């Protein structure tokens, strides 16, 4: 008898498909509808820090260089007040096997899939993670399927995503190129059901633990060269895994005073599931369309409990405009002699703005770069935007309107970014939790979990409870 493949029927089989494809029984960690044992779920992956390092070295992951951006730091000091202008460091994650930090994330999932005897791995992503899984799967002798949202209904592909699809195929993966829509998840479920492959989701404990080595490497490298901990580490933020794993690694290394700063490209006003808006944004990830919803409700993803919980570790959230990132990307090439892709340059843009406000003896670390090339280059993105009717010009970046124009700064002083108030996001998160269980019925354990999940103490949570009743 054939199974019912309608959208509703497949979504209803979600939990059983996930359990079979991950081998994790998430119900074992549930303590109430809002609260679960996060640390035990992470520990149960069974890997020590040394295990993670050893597994990653087998497949060309980790030990990436940390560069001091001397010329860019000097340029920032020239426009800063006396005594201001922190040293900017860049962790060159493009040196990983597939050209981005995502190799760290994929390495542990693929190792686990192989160890458990799966024939292959599948993942749904339009980002660098697809190439990372394909590259790691190739090295572990696993088959690989990558599902990507690539085209609008006219068949026009986002150049950056087209390039990412090419890279997956280059590593021998079967690539599913899909049109715009949240049904990507439906397709992942049917693919997992058909193939019996391991679900190399971005959000499993394996994926997040793999990123911890990025945090420990940063702590060790900064200490060795500067005899101190970094004052701030800036992380390009979308789904929250990069921030979560890096922060856990820094904490594991004892760098507990380092500020963890999230940064996203501000795309407010564009709808992420809109066929029309899809090709009118010039960033495919690292933007507020993922960053904000994932921060305010991490458990919206393809696993029942998301191991990426960004608000648990975030101290600050900076937003930058598309034009500001393109300007700083160009400066990285002209002043520092390296070309890198958009993801790391998003946090580099925030670092430029922050370094200006920080003391001269302080250190700010941009914790990733990614590869660049045809499709993934800022010139490709701007040329594509122009062809889609977006106005591209030099000027004041505060005039940027996502989907309408891209205003590239005329001078470094105009690269300022802006702040996303965290307490507003914390309240949104709590309101989402209150949809599961009304706030007046939260237990002491629920409150302890929720306050830890937004990096606040229970007294703060008590103080905002009246606002949740509305």
């Amino acid at each position, binding site marked *: 008898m054939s199974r019912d493949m309608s959208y509703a029927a497949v979504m209803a089989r979600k939990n059983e498909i996930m359990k079979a494809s991950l081998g994790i029984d998430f119900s074992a960690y549930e303590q109430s509808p809002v609260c679960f044992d996060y640390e035990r779920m992470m520990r149960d992956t069974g890997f020590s820090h040394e295990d993670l390092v050893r597994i990653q070295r087998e497949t060309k992951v980790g030990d990436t260089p940390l560069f001091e951006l001397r010329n860019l730091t000097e340029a*920032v000091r020239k426009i800063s007040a006396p005594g201001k202008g922190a040293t900017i460091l860049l962790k060159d994650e493009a040196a990983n096997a597939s050209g981005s930090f995502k190799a760290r994330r994929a390495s542990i999932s693929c190792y686990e899939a192989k160890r458990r005897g799966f024939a292959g791995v599948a993942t749904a992503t339009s980002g660098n993670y697809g190439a990372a899984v394909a590259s790691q799967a190739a090295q572990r002798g696993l088959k690989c399927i990558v599902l990507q949202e690539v*085209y609008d209904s006219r068949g026009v592909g986002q150049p950056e995503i087209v390039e990412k699809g090419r890279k997956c195929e280059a590593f021998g993966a079967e690539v599913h190129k*899909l049109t715009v*829509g949240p049904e990507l998840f439906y397709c992942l479920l049917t693919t997992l059901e058909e193939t019996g492959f391991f679900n190399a989701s971005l959000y499993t404990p394996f994926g997040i633990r793999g990123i911890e080595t990025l945090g420990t490497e940063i702590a060790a490298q900064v200490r060795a060269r500067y005899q101190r901990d970094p004052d701030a580490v800036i992380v390009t933020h979308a789904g929250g895994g990069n921030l979560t794993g890096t922060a856990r690694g820094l904490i594991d290394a004892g760098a507990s005073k380092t500020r963890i700063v999230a940064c996203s490209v501000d795309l407010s006003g564009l709808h992420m599931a809109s066929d029309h808006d899809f090709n009118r944004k010039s960033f495919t990830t690292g933007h507020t369309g993922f960053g904000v919803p994932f921060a305010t409700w991490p458990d919206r993803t393809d696993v029942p409990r998301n191991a990426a919980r960004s608000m648990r570790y975030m101290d600050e959230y900076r937003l930058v405009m598309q034009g500001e990132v393109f300007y700083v990307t160009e400066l990285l090439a002209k002043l520092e002699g390296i070309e890198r892709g958009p993801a790391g340059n998003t946090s580099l843009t925030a670092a430029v703005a922050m370094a200006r406000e920080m003391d001269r003896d302080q250190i700010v670390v941009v914790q990733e770069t990614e590869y660049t090339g045809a499709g993934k280059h800022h*010139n490709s993105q701007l040329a594509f935007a*122009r062809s889609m009717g977006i106005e591209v010009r030099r000027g004041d970046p505060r005039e940027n309107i996502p989907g309408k124009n891209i205003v*590239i700064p005329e001078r470094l002083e105009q690269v300022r970014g802006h702040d996303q108030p965290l307490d507003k996001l914390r309240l949104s998160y709590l309101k989402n939790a209150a949809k599961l269980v009304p706030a007046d019925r939260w237990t002491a354990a629920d409150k302890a979990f929720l306050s830890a999940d937004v990096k606040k103490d229970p007294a703060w949570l008590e103080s905002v409870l009246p606002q949740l009743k509305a």
Partner: protein
Amino acid sequence: MNTIPAETWVEIEQVILTPAQRAPGIPDDTRATPYVRRISGFLTAPAAVGGDATIRTLIGRTLTGTLRVVNPSYSHSFGDTVPELLNIGLGGQA
């Protein structure tokens, strides 16, 4: 009609969900279109463009759909030069 020989590298297209079958709650402009998947592979038997075709993918799976493109290729580029970028950072000046 032109028949494409077996073992040719091609791209097929599948309509996964018609507009009526799509997920609830999606924007109207997206709902007006079918949800479509394209996959590349080697033709397992001769087929015509626009007709039914079966492919063997890079990982050896067999899939069927409508034959869309023969020898699908990547032509993405660095795009037309954007002059607004060229004078940023010249002479080491930010």
